[in-house]
C-alpha cells in the first residue's frame, strides 16, 4: 500500500528506534527488521505517517524497534486494531506484524476478514512453524509428525497453508518471501506497499532456538536450487539454474527437465499474477520434494485491484453529505415529530 506524501530521502537508520533489539542471536527477525527499515526508507514515507501494529509473539516485538507510531497489542488482534485504525485514518501507512500463532491460530478470524475487506494495509506474517515466545509448542503451520513439547508423539493437526488460506479469503495481494534472501524480501515489501489493498506477505523465518533449519531446503546452497521456484510476472516458471521448469499437464503441474532437449522454457508455464486459477495451483505447491512434491514458490502469487474498505466507507460519507448535507446536530436531536408544551 502507499498513498502518503513523499518526503526528502530518508535512510533505514531514520527508522531505527532507540530501543535495544532483544530477539535471540541468529533469529531471522533481525534480517527482516533491517529490510523493513530499508524498504520503508526507500518508499519515502515520513515516519510520523507510518504505524506498525503487532499482536503477541516474538515477531510482535517489532514495533518497538521502529521509529514510527506503533502498538504492540494483544494476541491475535493486530489485524482488527489495524482495521479500525485504517478505517479512521486512510492517510496513514499501516503495517501489521504478526506470526503464525498470532494470525493463523488465535487471530485467524480477524486475518480472513481483513483480507476480504481489503483495507489498504500490509500484513507481514512471520512464519517459523513454531511457538517461540512460549518456548517451543507446535503452531498451526507445524508439519504433521513434528515432535515438540506439546506434541511428544508428533503433531496430528493438519497444517495451514498460509498463501492458500489468503487466496481462499480473497486476498488481493499474496506473496511469499524468506528471511535469508534480503534482496528479494525488500523488493517484495516495496511491491506490497505499492499494491492498493491488503498485501499479504508470508515471510519464512528461521527460529534458531526451537525450530532451527526448518527452511534450510530454501536457504542452503546445494539444496535451495532444487527446492525453490522464484515466480516473476511474464516469465516462464524455471528454476535450478534454468535446468528445470514447471508445465501444466491438463490441470496438473509437473516438473520438466530442460537439459535433455525434449522441453524448453517455452514449454513452461508463464507466471501471471493476475490469474486466480494459476495462483491457486501455485499456492498448492506445498508438499516437500522428497514426498513427491514440487519446488516451493517465492514471490507474488496473485494480485488484483479491488476497492478498498476505507475508501468505500469514505465514499458513503461523501455521498451522504452530498445528498443530505453535513449533519445538523440540532435537526438530529429534534427528530421528525415534535410537540410543544406551553
Amino acid at each position, binding site marked *: 500500500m502507499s498513498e502518503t506524501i513523499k518526503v526528502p530521502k530518508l535512510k533505514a537508520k531514520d527508522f531505527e528506534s532507540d530501543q535495544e533489539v532483544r530477539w535471540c542471536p541468529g533469529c531471522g527477525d533481525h534480517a527482516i527488521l533491517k529490510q523493513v527499515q530499508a524498504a520503508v526508507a526507500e518508499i519515502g514515507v515520513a515516519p510520523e505517517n507510518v504505524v506498525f501494529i503487532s499482536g503477541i509473539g516474538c515477531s510482535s516485538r517489532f514495533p518497538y524497534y521502529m521509529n514510527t507510531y506503533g502498538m504492540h*497489542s494483544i494476541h491475535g488482534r493486530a489485524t482488527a486494531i489495524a482495521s479500525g485504525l485504517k478505517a479512521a485514518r486512510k492517510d496513514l501507512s499501516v503495517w501489521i506484524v504478526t506470526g503464525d500463532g498470532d494470525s493463523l491460530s488465535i487471530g485467524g478470524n*480477524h486475518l480472513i476478514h481483513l483480507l476480504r475487506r481489503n483495507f489498504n494495509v500490509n500484513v507481514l506474517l512471520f512464519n517459523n512453524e513454531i511457538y517461540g515466545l512460549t518456548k517451543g509448542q507446535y503452531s498451526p503451520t507445524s508439519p504433521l509428525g513434528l515432535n515438540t513439547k506439546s506434541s511428544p508423539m508428533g503433531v496430528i493437526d493438519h497444517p495451514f497453508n498460509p498463501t492458500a488460506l489468503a487466496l481462499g479469503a480473497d486476498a488481493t495481494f499474496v506473496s511469499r518471501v524468506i528471511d535469508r534472501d534480503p534482496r528479494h524480501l525488500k523488493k517484495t515489501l516495496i511491491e506490497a506497499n505499492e499494491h492498493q489493498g491488503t498485501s499479504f506477505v508470508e515471510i519464512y523465518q528461521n527460529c534458531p532456538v526451537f525450530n532451527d533449519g526448518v527452511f534450510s531446503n530454501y536457504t542452503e546452497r546445494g539444496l535451495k536450487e532444487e527446492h525453490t521456484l522464484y515466480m516473476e510476472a511474464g516469465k516462464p516458471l524455471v528454476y535450478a539454474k534454468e535446468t528445470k521448469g514447471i508445465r501444466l499437464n491438463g490441470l496438473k503441474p509437473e516438473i520438466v527437465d530442460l537439459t535433455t532437449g525434449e522441453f524448453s522454457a517455452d514449454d513452461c508455464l508463464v507466471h501471471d499474477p493476475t490469474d486466480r486459477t494459476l495462483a491457486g495451483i501455485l499456492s498448492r505447491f506445498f508438499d516437500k520434494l522428497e514426498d513427491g512434491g514440487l519446488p516451493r514458490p517465492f514471490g507474488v502469487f496473485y494480485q488484483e485491484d479491488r476497492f478498498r474498505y476505507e475508501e468505500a466507507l469514505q465514499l458513503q460519507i461523501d455521498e451522504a453529505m452530498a445528498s443530505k448535507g453535513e449533519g445538523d446536530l440540532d435537526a438530529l436531536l429534534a427528530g421528525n415529530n415534535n410537540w*410543544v*408544551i406551553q
Partner: protein
Amino acid sequence: MQDTTEALDEVVVLFAGDSGDGMQLTGNQFTNTTALFGNDVSTFPNFPAEIRAPQGTVGGVSGFQVKFGSHRLFTPGDEADVLVAMNAAALKANFDKLKKGGVLIANTDGFDSKNLKLANCADVNPLQAERMNEYNVQAFNFTQLTLDTLADTVIPRKEAARSKNMFVLGLLYWMFNRSMEPTERFIETKFRKSPELIESNLKVLRAGYHFGETNEAFAHRIDVKPAELEPGVYRNIMGNQATALGLIAAAKKSGLELFYGSYPITPASDILHELAKHRNFGVKTFQAEDEIAAVASSIGASFAGSLGVTASSGPGIALKQEAIGLAVMLEIPLVVVNVQRGGPSTGLPTKTEQADLMQALYGRNGEAQMPVVAANSPQEAFDAVYEATRIALEFMTPVMFLSDGYIANGAEPWKFPKAADLPELKTQKISEVPSEGFLPYKRNADLVRSWAVPGTKGLEHRLGGLEKDELTGNVSYDPDNHEKMVKIRAEKVANIANHIPEQTIDQGPESGEVLILGWGSTYGAIKTAVAQLNQEGFEVAHAHLRYLNPFPKNLGDLLEKYNQVIIPEMNDGQLINIIQAKYSKVCVPLDKIKGIPFTANEIKEKVKSIYPES
C-alpha cells in the same frame, strides 16, 4: 348514539398477541400518537427471543405496555387498565397484569379450539370463565371484521387478515379520542411502494375507529388530558436511540470523528442501526466479524485520534474484556456501551437485568480500573453517555457505559437540548512537541497523559499491553515501577471523583429513616414509589447513582444520614456488596431477577416491611 366520557389522570394499555400479530408496531404507533397529543408516556416492550416463536403458544407472545398520563410518569405502570389479547396465549401470559374491573379487548378468532390447545387452555375458553364477570370483556372477531372490511379489495385473504392490528389500533384511537392522523402518515410512508397496502391499511384503521363509534360496547370513552410537563419542545425517544444521539453529539462537540465498532447483539443492535443512518455526520460504523474485533477496531480508531466506541450486551462484553484491559494499559479514550440483558451465558437475550455491574468493575485480568457510568431512563441515556464520553476524553481512559434492555427499548418524551447548550468537551490531544520534550506517559495534575496522534511529527511513539516505564512508556519489568504504575492507573480513575458532581437526593428528606439507593433503570419505579410513600407520610428518600466508579465523594457521608438504606437491583445483590465493603454500612437488599423491571408497588412494600412501627 350518545357516548359518555370518563376523565382519567393516567392509563396503562397492554397490547399482547402472537409474535406475528404486529403488537410492537401497534404499541409504538399508539405511543407516538399519544405523545404527540401531549401526554407523558412510558413504555415497556416485552418480546420473545425467537424471531418466529411457535405460533399461538405462550412462549411466542409479544407484549407492548404503554402508560400515558396527564402528569409526569416514570414507569410503564404496574397493572393494565386495558389489555388487548389477540389470542388465548396472549391472554394467558398477561391476564394477571390486568387490573380488576379493567377492559379486556379480545380477538375471538384467536380463541378457537386450535389456539386454545396451543395455549394449553384445556379446551375451556378463558373468555367464558366465571372470573371474567369481574372484568369488562369486549370480545369480537377482529380477524373477520378486517376481512369483511377488505372484501372488495384485491388484497388476498391471508394478507388482509394481517392488518387486524390496524383495526384494533383504530378502535383504541376511538376509545381514547386520539387522532388517526399520525398513524395515517406512518402508513403512507411505510407502504409508499404499494398503493394497495396504503389503501387497505388506512381502510382497516378507519373501520376500527368507526366500529368503536357505532358499537354500543365502546360508547364509554376515556379522556386523558395532555400532561403538564415543563414547557418546551418535546419528542419521543427510545433508550438505544438516545444513546446513539448522545454519541454523535459528543463527537461533534469534541471535534472528533465517531468510529463505532460493533457486532450485532440483542438488545444493543439498535444503536448500530441508528448510527449507521448518520453517515452525513461523518459517523463511521464498522460491523466487525466478532465482539473482539469490534472493540479492537475501536481501539485502533482511538489510537488514530477518533472517538472510538464499541457496544454490546453482557456476553459480548465478556469477550471484549481483554481488549478493554489493553485500553486501560494504553490509556486512550474508549467508550464501551453495555446494554445489559439477563445472564449468565446467553441467558435471557430480550429481557432486562442489571447483573453486569461486577463485570464492568472487575471483569478484566489484573488491576484494571475503569470508570463506570449508568443511564437511568431512555431519555437520560443521552446525557449519561455524553458524560461517559466526557470522562473518556478528559481522562484518557476507557469508560463503561451501562444501559439495559428496559432502557434500550423503552420510550418516553424528551425535552431535547439545543446543540449550543451542550457542555463543551475537551480532549488531551497535542499537536506539537512540548517545549520540555515529549514523553508518552508524562501526566498532568490529574495523572492524565497526552493524546499524541499518528501523523504528528516528532511525537512518534510505541505503546503496548506490556507494563511500561513511568514516563517513557518503554517496556519495563522493574518490580517497583510495576507497583507504581498499577497505583497510578488506579489513582487516576479514583481522582475523577473530583470532577463529577456530588451525589444528590432525588426526592424526600435530606436525612431520616430510609434511603433508597438505586442505579440504572430502577429509577422510575423507585421515584414513583417514593413519591407515593412521602404522600402517605413515610420518611423515605431516593438517591440514584449515575457514577458507579468512582462513586461521588460524599456518598459515604450521605448514607450515614439515614437509619436504613435499601438497595433495589435487578440482580442477586451486586451494588449492595460494593457499598457495604466500601462504606461499612449494612444495607437492605431488594433483588429481582425475573428479567422484568420492578413495579413501584414492590419497592413500596419493601419500605413498609422494614419501616419501624410507630
